[in-house]
């Protein structure tokens, strides 16, 4: 125990003496949290909308005005024909072309039926899907409006059988993406900082030759590893705390759940990441190698964590891989506890898997750390 304290003291001195490291540990995460949470939004705004009006009637102008009024659409231009609109789409100048056919108004009033052509740039499939929904909402709204106008008193019984669904968004009522993203990005910060710091730390001692000096002392493997990793555990918890304060004060993210539970889970989670970091540093000889390998895992972990894309929509094999992704569990727990107020029973599966993971990774790390070659 005494020996571990000597190591911890030394590590903290070195961390706080390293003028290049301190900003990386404390300031960069904050900047990332603030920038990423604001930038990484899935809201689709400023859609570049254009139209071809072949009818030039009061109805067609009405419809276009509805698009103009929507905050999602940025009405760029009208095209005289399809040829010009197609080349604008090709250039990326417009995202959507709405073509109103000739006799739009006449067909609506006489036949009560007409067609509209909508062309959407679907290079970004997810965005195209959302745009499609927005367009449909506007057209349907227009449709109801027209119906009311054209309705004859004796039509009432026939047309009123419409079913209208009103979505109710739970846990994030205003569909605020910051509420959704902040807990997730906080997960990334805690993970990245602890993984990179722990992964590079022991390798650094290898590089400068001090690890050999440590290895000729009678120190026990476990003492050395605990002494080495404990400071980073503290830093991880510190980053979580700073992040939670920012989430609450700056982003006004509702934190419904229990703070104790968040800290309990995070404190176990950090062990997993530190174990991975140590494991990496045992198999690398330079900080550069350690950094590349850490990044490799980090990118896979992030993209398969459900933070940006839902895991449910991944192929089956990919979903199986995500079972081994610690970030996935942390993202789930953060969102569940912060936004839904989940209790310990709700997060029990994630908690147990994380504990198991922590044991396996740290076991591997201690096993693979060799004082003799």
């Amino acid at each position, binding site marked *: 125990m*005494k020996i571990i304290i000597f190591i911890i*003291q030394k590590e903290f001195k070195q961390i706080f003496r390293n003028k290049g490291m301190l900003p990386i540990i404390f300031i960069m995460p904050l900047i990332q949290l603030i920038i990423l949470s604001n930038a990484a939004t899935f809201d689709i705004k400023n859609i570049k909308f254009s139209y071809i009006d072949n009818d030039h009637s009061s109805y067609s102008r009405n419809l276009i005005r509805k698009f103009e009024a929507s905050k999602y659409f940025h009405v760029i231009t009208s095209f005289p024909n399809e040829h010009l609109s197609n080349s604008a789409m090709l250039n990326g100048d417009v995202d959507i072309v709405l073509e109103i056919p000739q006799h739009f108004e006449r067909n609506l009033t006489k036949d009560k039926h007409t067609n509209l052509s909508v062309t959407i740039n679907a290079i970004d499939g997810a965005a195209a899907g959302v745009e499609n929904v927005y367009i449909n909402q506007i057209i349907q709204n227009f449709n109801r409006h027209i119906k009311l106008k054209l309705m004859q008193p004796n039509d009432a019984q026939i047309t009123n059988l419409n079913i209208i669904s009103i979505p109710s968004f739970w846990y994030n009522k205003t569909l605020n993406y910051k509420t959704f993203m902040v807990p997730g990005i906080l997960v990334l910060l805690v993970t990245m900082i602890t993984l990179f710091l722990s992964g590079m730390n022991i390798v650094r001692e290898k590089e400068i030759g001090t690890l*050999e000096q440590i290895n000729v002392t*009678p120190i026990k493997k476990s003492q050395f590893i605990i002494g080495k990793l404990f400071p980073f555990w503290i830093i991880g918890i510190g980053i979580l705390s700073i992040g939670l304060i920012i989430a609450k004060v700056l982003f006004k993210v509702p934190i419904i759940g229990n703070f104790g539970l968040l800290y309990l889970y995070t404190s176990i989670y950090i062990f997993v990441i530190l174990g991975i970091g140590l494991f990496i540093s045992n198999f690398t000889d330079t900080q550069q190698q350690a950094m590349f390998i850490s990044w490799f895992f980090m990118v896979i972990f992030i993209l398969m964590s459900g933070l940006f894309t839902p895991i449910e929509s991944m192929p089956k094999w990919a979903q199986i891989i995500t079972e081994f992704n610690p970030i996935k569990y942390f993202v789930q727990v953060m969102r569940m506890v912060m936004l839904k107020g989940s209790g310990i029973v709700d997060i029990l599966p994630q908690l147990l898997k994380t504990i198991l993971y922590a044991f396996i990774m740290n076991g591997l790390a201690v096993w693979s750390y060799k004082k003799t*070659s």
Partner: protein
Amino acid sequence: MENVIEAIGLTKSFGAFTAVNAISFHVQKGEIFGFLGANGAGKTTAIKMLIGIANPTSGAAKVAGFDVFTEAESIKRNIGYMSQKFALYDDLTVKENITFFGGIYGLTRAAIKTKTQALIDELNLENVANHLVGSLPLGWKQKISFSVALLHNPKIVFLDEPTGGVDPITRRQFWEMIYKAAHQGTTIFVTTHYMDEAEYCDRVSIMVNGKIEALDTPKNLKKTYKAENMNDVFLKLARG
């Protein structure tokens, strides 16, 4: 005399390459043992086996009475080591380095305090005790390194080219420190490329291509090889 190092047929191979080829020798208590050889002769590999950070491929060796295969951790409690690569922490002060290494050898805070003061007085480090080690000249660092290797009163201290790149005055001071430690009963196992230093040793071994080609006192070696000085002995052996 009691033998503190005994090696019999100690061998280390890396694949097809044999870095250390069945070396046998012994070192007596309180002796200054010079372990010479050209670059790549296998000195460092041999030392690594003796200090318990590299497993021998075959052979047997006992250091401070403990087996290198099975009791490496007990060996570590009884030896000090100073590597070729300077191994104090540049970003810690002199005092902090002493505290840290004293601490991981299990010394108490009180013992560390007394030792630190004694060491600072002995090396005249009063003015730089709170300076970062990285800011000190190499010769100073090496002297501090040696003192740190002696902190826990080891029976044997292994020095791997301790005076490389150090000026002649500091080298002399360094050897005075070595003599003092040897006088107090510490066995010194030292590698060097300076042949004048080899003359200071009680006995010298010369390694060539993984084998010990000669082992005797400097005086006898000069006689055997009909050489003026150790430099000529070394050249005759190393050139084959």
